[in-house]
């Protein structure tokens, strides 16, 4: 049994170790994808053979605040040489925030042959594993994408309003100061891009970082995660849960934990998150 399997996850196969990735660098059935917050990082060196999928540039509509559509996703997959049978393995900086966000976007299009490299970029680098500056090129594939499905794992503003009115569980994964609405002391700085601070009424506060081991960014064991979410936040695997943060990046990390590591049936990421809710006229806010 691998170390990841020993952690007791419901779907341990969705998480792979750096060692696993290292042994699959030349596997034609695998496409390794780096997704970072820092736009300069990939070029400084990446897992050999990894392509870059930039969340802003590659996954977002350039005009509307929305994700790319079927045609855009299809073009992306063809460009990086991914077929329906390719398993994509995501990793990145910031404890895999953007890697899980890219993973989540890929799920909107149903590409479920997807994994996350535990510990992300920093674990790979700290283990002294090779970093390559060369940008690889793969033959274009003939990927045919499905239409984007926003119903299953994505929540929108009106659904969140109905959710809170029905007193269903919400998880706010931001820091305690963001959750409480504590203002920054110098008013001329952007306050998380929102006019109002606080949280969605009824949301439990479970900062995303509590799900990872601080020394290497790996995910905690199932037992530790259950204590956090089922114990502290009092949510159960059968619950209908909505998670959010500021723009959905940290909450995609929590979505990944709840859905794949703890086996929750219905978790949706509210990607509008606080940059939408905190600027929305008339919605309730709690502090």
């Amino acid at each position, binding site marked *: 049994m691998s170390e990841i399997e020993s952690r007791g996850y419901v779907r341990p196969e969705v998480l792979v170790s750096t060692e696993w990735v290292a042994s699959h660098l030349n596997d034609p059935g695998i496409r390794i994808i780096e997704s970072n917050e820092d736009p300069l990082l990939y070029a400084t060196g990446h897992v050999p053979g990894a392509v870059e999928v930039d969340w802003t540039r590659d996954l977002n509509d350039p005009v509307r605040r929305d994700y790319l559509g079927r045609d855009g996703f299809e073009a992306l997959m063809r460009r990086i040489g991914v077929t329906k049978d390719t398993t994509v393995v995501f990793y990145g900086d910031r404890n895999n925030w953007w890697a899980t966000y890219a993973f989540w976007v890929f799920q909107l299009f149903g590409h479920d042959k997807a994994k996350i490299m535990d510990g992300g970029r920093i674990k790979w680098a700290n283990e002294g594993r090779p970093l390559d500056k060369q940008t690889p090129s793969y033959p274009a594939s003939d990927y045919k994408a499905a239409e984007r499905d926003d119903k299953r794992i994505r929540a929108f503003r009106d659904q969140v309003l109905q959710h809170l009115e029905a007193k269903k569980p919400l998880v706010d994964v931001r820091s305690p100061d963001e959750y409480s609405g504590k203002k920054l002391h110098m008013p001329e*700085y952007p306050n998380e891009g929102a006019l109002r601070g606080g949280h969605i009424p009824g949301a439990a506060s479970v900062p995303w970082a509590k799900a990872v081991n601080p020394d290497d960014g790996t995910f905690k064991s199932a037992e530790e995660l259950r204590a956090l979410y089922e114990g502290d936040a009092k949510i159960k695997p059968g619950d209908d849960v909505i998670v959010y943060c500021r723009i959905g990046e940290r909450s995609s990390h929590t979505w990944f934990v709840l859905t794949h590591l703890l086996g929750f049936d219905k978790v949706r990421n509210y990607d509008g998150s606080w940059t939408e809710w905190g600027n929305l006229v008339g919605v309730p806010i709690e502090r």
Partner: protein
Amino acid sequence: MALPDKLTDTLETLEMVPDRGERIQLLIDIAGRFEEVPPRLARRPFAKEHQVPACESEAYVFTEPRPDGTLDFHFAVENPQGISAKAMAVILGDALSGAPPQQVAEVSQDIVYQVFGRELSMGKSMGLMSMVGMVAAMAKKQAEAKSS
């Protein structure tokens, strides 16, 4: 008010590099020149009032007054992968240290887009813009102190 000359020069140099890959490499090279705030000015743990708000790379800004009333700007970036923050810090430090405080105070946070392009995630741009904002705010305080 016009931008400080050195900042104008830096932005023009970056704009002359239209190829995205070359610009990224240039910014990486700039980040490679990053030098942390000297210990005579600040040591860890750095004071929270110097921390750049909304910057996920945990960056800090410090100032050191020059005899002519201008400021030297120094930085710390705690995130070892904070390449963009380091690049921005080098650009700001080189271009704005020694510039008239009133000019620095009016530098727009939008220069972040002139440096990195428009394809920045909201979180990344907010952190970098916050860094510019903090430098401008510190310069504004200095300008007000000079005139009073």
